[in-house]
């Protein structure tokens, strides 16, 4: 078709390998919960806010119930609400003030509590589905940008400045706004609260900030006559909780990678695998698109040598995502334009990689990251690197084009850096709109050879990972040259083995809603 002449059989084998690899982890995920999964359940039940010491109420309650996490916090909480006739927030506040203690036995009967809990769950799921249908109806009435969607970041640290810059970007052609998180937030085991104006290299991800930005974008969407999507970052120690906030506040996309936290943030592997599964179910139900983080491999590895690790990670992410009920259109699988610009034919290799991924994942809106590593103080060179990146984007029909900034090597984007990035992309993509259908890859030329080569390397790599086991391969430093052990990393203490009585009521109804009950029973 495209002339790359990729072997269908090899692609099938790649997917089988990926499924084999991810299913190695399912017993682990099924048998454990984590503090953040439990906090997400509470958030899903409607808990929000902080106590007098600024501790988020979900943390208060989970800390309070630390002895009972093995059973899940949902039922106990529902019981207590019935028992004390309190809303979930009132309950948590009173616990924080040590006015009540719910760790002991409560009068409420289990069946009463279960009924009450199911009611809450129904109602809350309804809320999330309502948010989803709000999004859908806004898109159908306003329309949306055509792909590749123009994705830009705001990162001033101050949500109010972020809002101004996001609005300006939307007016100038952005389809997607990502509010970058402040340095280090991914390592906090709680979610900051309220509107924030101070951050380093990014802005705190809080529910209030989400709300403020979403409402600004709704407004500007109407002005532009185009639905503008909002993105934030789920990765880190609060992965599912952030997705819950996003589900309520109508975020449209979420950075959500199955292994990013392990490799690039040194978060415990078991913790991450558990968190990612539940977080992705919530993503799936709320109709969000996830973005995976394959670009991160190329910030340390060489983009030519490491090309197959990108494809391998995409396949693993896809497999985990499928298991959690995400549809192909919800999988913003990642890759990046990071080949050294001084390499002869480097552009052709970038193009090869992009066309190859497009062919392997035909239904997914690939998320394409711009040059960053080789950006320098030469803003002029950087600007044309971004132009070639945009050309590859339109050529290979990427889904989500993360626009490169000419000042990437200096600072988080200035207002006009973002404007220039949008202009760059607009010019290149419009001026070469139908380039994909104008040319066929020469099947014996360098572009096709390269793509077939990357597939072979990936096959070999995944075979080894499968044989060795995913956790063992990670320990072995097979991914990103980084070694992480099952016992190491942050957040392991927040992993709890489930009891036989464990209940996460949302997991079940969500699996039903997603029509993946059977598959899900292997995972949760």
């Amino acid at each position, binding site marked *: 078709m495209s002339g790359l002449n990729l072997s269908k059989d090899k692609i099938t084998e790649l997917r089988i390998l990926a499924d084999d690899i991810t299913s190695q982890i399912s017993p682990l995920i099924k048998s454990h919960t984590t503090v953040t999964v439990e906090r997400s359940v509470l958030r899903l039940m409607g808990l929000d806010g902080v106590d007098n010491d600024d501790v988020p109420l979900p943390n208060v309650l989970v800390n309070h119930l630390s002895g009972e996490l093995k059973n899940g916090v949902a039922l106990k909480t529902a019981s207590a609400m019935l028992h004390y006739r309190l809303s979930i927030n009132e309950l948590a506040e009173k616990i924080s003030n040590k006015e009540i203690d719910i760790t002991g036995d409560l009068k409420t009967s289990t069946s009463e509590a279960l009924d009450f809990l199911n009611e809450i769950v129904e109602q809350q799921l309804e809320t999330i589905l309502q948010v989803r249908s709000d999004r859908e109806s806004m898109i159908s009435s306003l329309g949306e940008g055509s792909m590749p969607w123009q994705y830009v970041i705001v990162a001033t640290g101050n949500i109010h400045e972020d809002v101004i810059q996001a609005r300006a970007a939307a007016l100038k052609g952005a389809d997607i706004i990502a509010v970058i998180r402040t340095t280090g937030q991914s390592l906090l085991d709680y979610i900051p609260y309220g509107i924030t104006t101070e951050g380093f290299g990014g802005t705190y991800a809080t529910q209030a900030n989400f709300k403020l930005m979403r409402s600004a974008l709704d407004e500007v969407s109407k002005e532009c006559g185009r639905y503008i999507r909002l993105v934030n970052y789920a990765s880190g120690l609060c992965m599912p909780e952030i997705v819950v906030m996003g589900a309520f506040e109508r975020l449209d996309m979420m950075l959500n990678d199955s292994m990013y936290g392990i490799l690039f943030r040194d978060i415990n592997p078991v913790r991450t695998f558990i968190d990612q599964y539940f977080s992705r179910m919530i993503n799936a139900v709320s109709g969000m698109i996830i973005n995976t983080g394959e670009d991160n491999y190329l910030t340390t590895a060489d983009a030519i040598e490491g090309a197959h690790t990108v494809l391998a990670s995409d396949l693993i992410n896809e497999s985990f995502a499928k298991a959690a009920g995400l549809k192909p259109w919800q999988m913003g699988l990642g890759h990046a334009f990071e080949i050294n610009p001084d390499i002869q034919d480097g552009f052709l290799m970038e193009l090869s990689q992009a066309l190859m991924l497009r062919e392997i994942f035909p239904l997914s809106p690939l998320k394409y990251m711009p040059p960053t590593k080789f950006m320098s*103080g030469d803003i002029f060179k950087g600007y044309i690197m971004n132009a070639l990146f945009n050309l590859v984007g339109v050529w290979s029909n990427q889904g989500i084009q993360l626009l490169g900034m000419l000042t990437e090597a200096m600072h988080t984007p*200035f207002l006009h850096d973002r404007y220039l990035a949008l202009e760059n992309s607009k010019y290149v993509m419009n001026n070469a709109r139908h380039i994909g259908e104008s040319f066929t890859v020469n099947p014996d030329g360098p572009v096709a050879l390269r793509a077939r080569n990357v597939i072979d390397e990936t096959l070999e790599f995944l075979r080894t990972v499968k044989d060795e086991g995913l956790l063992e391969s990670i320990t072995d430093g097979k991914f990103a040259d980084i070694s992480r052990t099952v016992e190491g990393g942050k957040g392991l203490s927040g992993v709890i083995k489930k009891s036989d009585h464990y209940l996460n009521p949302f997991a079940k109804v969500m699996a039903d809603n997603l029509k993946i009950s059977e598959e899900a029973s292997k995972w949760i």
Partner: protein
Amino acid sequence: MDIDNKSIKPYGDTLNDGSMQLSFTLPLPKGAHSTEVARRFVAQMGMNEVEVVLSNDIGEGFTFFVVYAKTSQTIDSTQVHVQEIVSKKWSREVCNEKIDEYFHRKVTVVGACIGEDAHTVGIDAIMNMKGYNGHYGLERYKGFKAINLGAQVTPEILLKKAVELNADAILVSQIVTQRDIHIQNLTEFVELADTSGIRKNTILIAGGPRIDNGLALELGYDAGFGRGSFADDVASYIIQELHRRLTGA
């Protein structure tokens, strides 16, 4: 955002952060010394947090720099006044109607690109049938008689033609600006026009990519049009200015 118009500063990503980008070449070889010279040079311009983000050897002992820095100065924007052309912009149709209504005759316009300057595209854009960027030129307006003498016309010939046709307006184009040749040419023409006595009944208009109304007024023209002007802008102005002069308003 609380913008204080009396104290405006550049905006990078926070109000009044003063961020600016500069690039320039110094006749010094690349190295730590010239980088420091570049840094101090920019600091001397009233900038803080000067970061020389690029220094490249560009041959023959020259170094090219890209610098980001924060200016400490502000400007009171309320004290800045520009002399904008005060006419309302009309469509071609309205222009034609107004000409009928005001003058009951055609308006005659003569134009040229004067001096050694051979760039006709600009004056053609205003005057010729075809126009530019979807805006038809004056030739296409039934209310106008437009005579375009083209390029490399001497001031004498342009003036002679205008007098001969009793022109309502003269359009002078200047594109080449090296060594301020456009200022010389425009001045020469206006001085010639001044001595000829046509100024009272004829509007003098200058145009070109480096011309604005302020500069044109300074040089003694009635109006100036820069990059991005179209025939309708010029037509509207001419009609309204002629009408003003006629009615003494």
